[in-house]
């Protein structure tokens, strides 16, 4: 008996989930804990989502808690605003971040400003989940990283997890947050982290410690970065899929980089950024999104303003190119190991 129990306990502490399962578990827990939580979106109900993130939730929690919607991103976000005004805590899904734009007016003009314009009479405590990012041959409309559009909007929080453990803890925190949260899920790493070498087989999450996801409720506060690895030679500010690509490059090149996974872009963990850059004196910013007016520009400006006298080299940005996301030329576009490696070399030479 005892032996069996220990094994179960051991199995539980070593339980590993991929990011999809972690997200599913977070939604399941929040649907269970709070009867005001509602999950809705295109194909999320009976079918369980095109990425399986909501699989089984409708059967468990019922059709009025988890349901399919018409194909209308404007409608999905708008009814979530109305539900929030009533007092619910909606968790709408936008099937791909590339398709969030029809809902943009409702997000920017309504959800983001409702608390402000009503002086707190009405709030919009919704969490918009949406798969984002490239690296999957998704072409122009299944690969975009539009986070900078949202970080520019006063009143929205933007969260991007990079591991199953974080995905669950951050999603629970986002759902509990009383402000509207854009929760972007890097779909390239739903099933396993990505080194940036597209010709190598994907290693499943089960082989990585970041896939250890405790059962039950836990939360990771929004606005706190995670130090992926400590280092002295430079600070890398990144998030989402690029956390793993950057880490692989640093490891392979033997660069003693300190990598910060920002996790929340707004509100940003400015203390962690300052502390790290002031220590290393060099800063590399890496994101998949296009370069001009991307979130990297904001990060670069902040580092320049706040760490200027500690900088030993100009801040470097590695990003996607300023083009729509191409299909066949994906790996020429993607900010992979070559581009990151070159930037690291340049930073160290300066």
């Amino acid at each position: 008996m005892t032996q069996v129990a220990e094994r179960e306990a051991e199995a539980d502490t070593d339980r590993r989930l991929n990011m999809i399962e972690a997200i599913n578990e977070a939604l399941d827990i929040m649907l269970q804990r709070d009867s005001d939580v509602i999950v809705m979106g295109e194909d999320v109900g009976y079918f369980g989502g095109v990425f399986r993130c909501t699989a089984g939730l409708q059967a468990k929690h019922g059709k009025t808690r988890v349901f399919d919607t018409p194909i209308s991103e404007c409608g999905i976000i708008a009814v979530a605003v109305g539900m929030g005004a009533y007092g619910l805590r909606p968790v709408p899904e936008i099937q791909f971040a590339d398709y969030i734009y029809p809902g943009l007016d409702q997000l920017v003009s309504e959800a983001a400003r409702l608390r402000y314009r009503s002086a707190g009479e009405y709030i919009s405590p919704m969490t918009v989940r949406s798969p984002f990012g490239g690296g999957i041959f998704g072409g122009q409309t299944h690969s975009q990283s539009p986070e900078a559009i949202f970080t520019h909007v006063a009143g929205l929080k933007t969260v991007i997890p990079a591991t199953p453990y974080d995905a669950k803890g951050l999603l629970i925190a986002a759902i509990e947050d009383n402000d509207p949260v854009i929760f972007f899920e890097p779909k390239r790493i739903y099933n396993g982290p990505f080194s940036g070498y597209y010709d190598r087989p994907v290693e499943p999450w089960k082989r990585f410690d970041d896939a250890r996801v405790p059962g039950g409720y836990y939360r990771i506060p929004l606005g706190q970065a995670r130090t992926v690895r400590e280092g002295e030679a430079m600070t890398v500010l990144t998030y989402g899929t690029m956390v793993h690509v950057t880490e692989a490059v640093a490891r392979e090149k033997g660069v003693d980089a300190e990598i910060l996974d920002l996790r929340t872009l707004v509100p940003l963990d400015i203390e962690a950024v300052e502390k790290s850059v002031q220590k290393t004196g060099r800063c590399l910013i890496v994101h998949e999104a296009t370069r001009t007016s991307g979130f990297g520009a904001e990060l670069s400006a902040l580092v320049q303003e706040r760490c200027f006298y500690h900088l030993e080299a100009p801040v470097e940005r590695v990003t996607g190119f300023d083009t729509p996301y191409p299909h066949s030329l994906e790996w020429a576009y993607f900010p992979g190991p070559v581009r990151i490696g070159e930037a690291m070399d340049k930073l160290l030479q300066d």
Partner: protein
Amino acid sequence: MTDPADPMDGKTNRPALSLHVPEPRFRPGDAVDYSHLAIPPAGAQPRPDEGCAAAETAPLCHDLIRVLGDDDRAHGPWDPKLDADTLRTMLGHMALTRAFDERMFRGQRQGKTSFYMKCTGEEATSIAAGMALAADDMVFPSYRQQGILIARGYPLVEMINQIYSNRGDKLKGRQLPIMYSSREHSFFSISGNLATQTPQAVGWAMASAIKGDSRIAATWVGEGSTAEGDFHSACTFAAVYNAPVILKVVNNQWAISSFSGFAGAERTTFAARALGYGLAGLRVDGNDALAVYAAERWAANRARANAGPTLIEYFSYRAEGHSTSDDPSGYRSAQEREEWPLGDPIMRLKRHLIALGEWDEERQEAMDRQCAEQVKAATKEAEKNGILGHGMHQPFRTMFEDVFEELPWHLQEQAEQAERERKIKFPEGLPRQ
């Protein structure tokens, strides 16, 4: 691009296409003749059961539900049979709203505020409709339903505080005048972005249904804004989830300078759009307070019984300019207002009460005087809190509050900057208000 196989080198014998750009019938200086408008007699429209199939309302989408006839009497199955006290209350709310509009318009011209919008001629579409709802039914108005707040007893002083963006402004000077919000009165925060409130109302109604509540939602949008995608989303979601919501289109014929033809009115009615979505639809004389009340009550009963949402078109006329920034003489005939065949909602209700022997001109005059005095007193009271022209009434820090529930570091830093600037700009403290 020419089809290379075309022997005529792009010159075909097909007729040339032409673009139709709608044009209103009357422009400035034109004589106005409304004989093309079909105004059916009051009382002639059937009243289907509130639980009927949506399709049964099809004839009513092209008709015009009317109760008050030319004889100032109530007619037909839509007569809501309201008692005289209720009718007098309704008339009082409408008169107060008009008096309020008059004074606030003047206040804008006197520089007490930056902006105002009247609802003259459309008072019934908010007041009679609002009175047919329960006090805790949630309303998602556009910017021309101030009558709902007045009917729900929201203090005039609070409205004026908001219009003046003064010290007493509950919205802390953040919102353009008339963009009210009152949760206590189940009145949703008004947005400048048109039609966004329509699918939000549907979402609120869905939430009420999810929770097994008994409250319903009601939303108003102008006919011009029905062209927005949000309106299509609202109709679709309302129908798909059988949401307990009433969607109202106030067709006042004008969207600033664009006549209703630019929202599609040349081809069909706004009520008829209900049919394609599977919503019940009603087209109502919006200047007939009894018809408005009856239609709204029909739709409310239908929604409350889980029988489905309703789309109502209130057919009316925007008697004044779009806003204090607008001069309608630049785009429409001044005669339109005088000739409008559905008359004025306040006059019609007044004459009805007089015809019933429940009112007279002396009492009307006394009521109008009393409304003007009430507004004047509220204005004086609100002016104690300052007017917009007197400068900044809110502590600078409040500008940064309520962006988020808590102040993040970057707003904290910006708030400190604003405080520093305040000390430099006003070393002796803020100018006297």
